[in-house]
């Protein structure tokens, strides 16, 4: 089974190069290649997740503390499965480009991005993480710019500069960590981080977190968010909202054992996350452009995830994982449906979607369900995340944060249902529904959301496994370092 874990990263890269050879051929070959690769990824990661759970591959035969390892434990496999599922849906149904589906250039970049995202999740090495992050970043810069309109370039440039700055800071942090602990292996780092002096640890971790916070779209690093979400092509929006932020969330969850050893850092991050939450959601409250609004909402949701992690404890991690997954699924639905709406009405202002429920009743329902899920309304998946999150906050006696979260949830609920309400208002002008194939993946994802919403028991075992893997540093370290020892 070892090869599967490697294949999860190698195959997309291979596919990316393969596509080059089919550049003269029809697009369907590209779609077939991408679909096959991503479907394979989804299935194999799910199989691994359900069969044995944990898997460690040491690349090149180097023993773990020295070489690069790929770790597929109960936590990372969940996320790999998740991102592969979403990339599969994008590849099969969405298309990278909004209009012409999948030309080979975007396809190759998309595959690279997939590989990089999977790599970021699977890798057990901090520097390797940085490399994958840059890989993902470069391909996403290009993909955002593929949108071709003015805000695509603006967004991509802002993303490049913010991203470049953040990743350089992260590299600096990695350097300091390596200098002080002598290791880059995350598991090893968990054990040895205590050896570093307080202030240096603060500096190093703070710098490393810069890179992760960029992916999580947390406040000072999320200035690129509105423009990029607005300008990116439809498929890339989903990647930004559902994959890259998910990966960021995963990394923060993974680093939780390290974070928890730094109460000072947590104290610093808590106001940052709250500020990010407030700013993002209030900005969204006012926003009229649907994609920018969804971008703001992503930033807000990721701030929630960060808060849940900072609340800590089993329940906090549980909430974080749940919210990340729920957000990834729901945001993908929203972008799929949003692209469908955009195609139908040729407008991105949500106020012009009035009366769309008559044209595309299913789309309206899907949008509503996903929006309610993000708000955390019962019956949808997001509810359980929010519920656990509030529980975690109250258990750790962070009453102020909980108050803010509750108020912000109300704001969030209002602006999401405002859009849903607009969809259901009657309107005389009749628009034709176009690109209804975009609704197929949305239906699949909504079914998952509602299934889990009504019966969270069906995945709570898996997520609890992930929680155990994330919460106890000993478990992760033992898994990685006992290998071959």
């Amino acid at each position, binding site marked *: 089974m070892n090869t599967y874990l490697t294949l999860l990263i190698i195959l997309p890269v291979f596919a990316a190069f393969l596509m080059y050879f089919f550049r003269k051929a029809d697009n369907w070959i590209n779609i077939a290649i991408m679909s096959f690769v991503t479907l394979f990824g989804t299935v194999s990661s799910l199989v691994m997740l359900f069969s044995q759970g944990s898997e460690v591959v040491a690349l090149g035969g180097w023993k773990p503390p020295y070489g690069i390892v790929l770790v597929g434990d109960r936590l990372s496999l969940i996320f790999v499965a998740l991102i592969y599922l979403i990339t599969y849906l994008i590849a099969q149904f969405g298309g990278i480009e909004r209009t012409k589906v999948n030309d080979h250039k975007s396809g190759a970049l998309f595959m690279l991005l997939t590989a990089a995202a999977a790599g970021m999740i699977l890798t057990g090495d901090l520097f390797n993480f940085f490399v994958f992050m840059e890989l993902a970043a470069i391909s996403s810069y290009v993909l955002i710019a593929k949108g071709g309109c003015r805000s695509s370039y603006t967004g991509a440039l802002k993303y490049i500069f913010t991203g470049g700055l953040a990743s350089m800071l992260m590299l600096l942090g990695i350097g300091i960590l390596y200098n002080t602990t002598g290791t880059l292996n995350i598991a090893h780092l968990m054990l040895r981080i205590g050896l570093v002096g307080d202030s240096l640890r603060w500096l190093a971790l703070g710098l490393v977190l810069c890179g992760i916070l960029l992916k999580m779209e947390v406040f000072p690093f999320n200035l690129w968010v509105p423009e990029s979400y607005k300008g990116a092509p439809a498929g890339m929006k989903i990647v930004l909202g559902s994959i890259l932020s998910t990966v960021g969330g995963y990394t923060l969850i993974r680093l939780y054992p390290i974070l928890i050893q730094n109460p000072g850092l947590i104290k610093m991050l808590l106001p940052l996350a709250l500020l990010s939450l407030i700013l993002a959601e209030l900005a969204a409250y006012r926003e009229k452009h649907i994609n920018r609004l969804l971008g703001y909402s992503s930033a807000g949701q990721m701030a929630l995830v960060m808060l849940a992690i900072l609340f800590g404890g089993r329940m906090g991690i549980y909430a974080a994982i749940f919210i990340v997954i729920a957000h990834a699924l729901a945001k993908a639905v929203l972008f799929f449906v949003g692209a469908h709406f955009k195609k139908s009405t040729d407008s991105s202002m949500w106020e012009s979607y009035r009366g769309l429920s008559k044209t595309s009743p299913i789309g309206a329902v899907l949008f509503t369900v996903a929006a309610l899920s993000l708000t955390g309304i019962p019956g949808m998946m997001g509810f359980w995340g929010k519920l656990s999150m509030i529980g975690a906050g*109250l258990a750790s006696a962070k009453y102020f944060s909980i108050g803010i979260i509750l108020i912000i949830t109300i704001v969030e609920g209002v602006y999401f249902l405002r859009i849903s309400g607009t969809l259901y208002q009657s309107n005389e002008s009749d628009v034709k529904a176009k690109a209804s194939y975009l609704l197929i993946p949305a239906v699949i994802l909504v079914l998952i959301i509602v299934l889990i919403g009504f019966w969270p028991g069906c995945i709570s075992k898996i997520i609890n496994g992930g929680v155990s893997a994330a919460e106890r540093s000993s478990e992760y370290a033992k898994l990685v370092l006992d290998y071959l020892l």
Partner: protein
Amino acid sequence: MISIGTMIILAVVLALITRVFLMKHKLLSWVLFSAYTAFSVFVLLKLYGNWNYFETMNLSYLVGRINMRPGFMNKPLGWFFSFFVMAMSFLNSFFSMGFSKSIHSRNIVPHWLMILAASLTVFFTKDWLLFIIGWETLGWASFFIIMGGKQKKYKDSMSYYFFSLVSGMLLIAAVWMIGIKFRTLNIHTTTRSMIILAKNTPWQAFPILLMLTLSFLIKSGAYPFHIWAPRAHKSAPADFSPFISGIMIKFGIFGLLLYVIPIVSKGYAGYSIFGMPVFAWVFSWLGIITSAIATVLAFSENDAKRLMAYSSVANAGYIITAIFLGTALGIKGGLLHAFNHMIFKAVIFMTIAAVVYRTGETDMNKMGGLAYKMPITFMTFLLGIIAAAGIAPMNGFVSKWMIYQALLGQKHYFMTVAMFFASTGAFLYLYRALHAIFLGQIREVHEREVKEVPFLMQIPMWIGMILMFGLGVFPGYLLRPMMPLMKTFGSSISESLNVVQGSVGSLNTLFSTVIFILGVVIAAAIFFLSAKTHKTPMMDNYTSGEDPEEWNVTPNKYQFSYGFYEPITKMFAWALKRSVDKAYFKASYILKIIGREINMIFTDHNNWGYAALLGLLAMIIGGLFL
């Protein structure tokens, strides 16, 4: 026996079916709705008396470390509320069937079924989790019904949804605090634990109780959260307004009775004032203030539905006051009033819906004289407002009398006076509605076009009339089945059919009604034994033989409706000027401004954001030297 869980799932499945397959067949979906509610009433009737009934579902929820299986318990309180929900929905469905042909949104049936499922969940659940689920489902489901696809109604429905969200959030926070404290989310066991907690460490129990109370008060439209009520009622489809007013406002009352009242009355160990816990005292006053303010607001209201909504808020105020008294009589009076209010207010809103059905109008200044064309509707409305104003011999009187008795029994004299104000005020604005809609001059358009509603829509009105009068004469028919319910609140008086016991007196409803009827008979005898009458058209008499047309005067101009209580409104102008509504509007406006400024941070060429970044860096580097 069909289990409660099955009933809930059935409702959800029916909702899906009607949403997906029966969008085009409105009448058929209403028939399905009607059948479902009838069936539920039947099931519930079989459940009555079976107070040990218990069921768990084969699902398991893991919340935090609490692994729970959702389950349902049959308790008298929940039974009564859900029975009324189902029965009122059943009655309403006849009305809606008649309504369905006209312009009517197709989304009502599925969402209403969702509401029914949610209300069954709320009323029967044994743990807080399902309670929250049901509670929040109510919010969005009714949002879509109230909006009904109309752009102009969107703001009103949003205000409802906003308050519903606030309530839900408060509920979640409170429930979690309970859950963390007691490691279980079972409603009935945590009640006991909370009583003990409140006795031992009141300051730990206090915030939880406060949050729960606020959450429930928001749903029952208490001041200062009342502003959703008139807006939601006004915008809701005419046949859904009875449900909002009759049922939705009572969810808060249910919550209070379920959890807050037992704990406050049994376990409160804090300060007391006038022999009453401060906590309960404050909220009793809040109830009275709610009803007084709603009354004042109703004086100057020109929209029939908004006026009745304010009336509902005022009645919710009485109920809140009564149940917070905590005495057996108070709770009994409050509960009885809640049930009576369900009946009479639903009936009143049905008559308004009938008027809307025929005229398409809710502005009272544009109506008048409809009684001459719609006698049945008029009679129903008349009996309804008699009940709503708490006038003998209708059912509203009995419960209001009990609330007065409870207040006097606890020596809350100021509250009694305030309630007198609200009650007399109710008579004022209800009469104004009666006059402006049904009496006075009929408009020419209405004279030509309006006629009585079809028989199908009359059925619930007839039943409502019978219920209002019957329960006014024999309140025992409702009080007797309520005995097991009252036993849970520590009262075990056996009720007689027509005598109600109060704290400073008793009331024999049968005799007083008989005497009233005798009085009417005497009056009628005097009337009919005296000389004959002959009928003349209305305009003939007081225009003294002149032809009004010559003076360019139409009957419309002879309808006195606008500014009916202007003197009173003038008196309260100082209060109306600073209304809570304005505060809310201002807050939302400020929120929008803030949102715009924040948008600027993100979209302006981002010096702001880089400055923040620099700040973050400074913090990180500064940490190095700390």
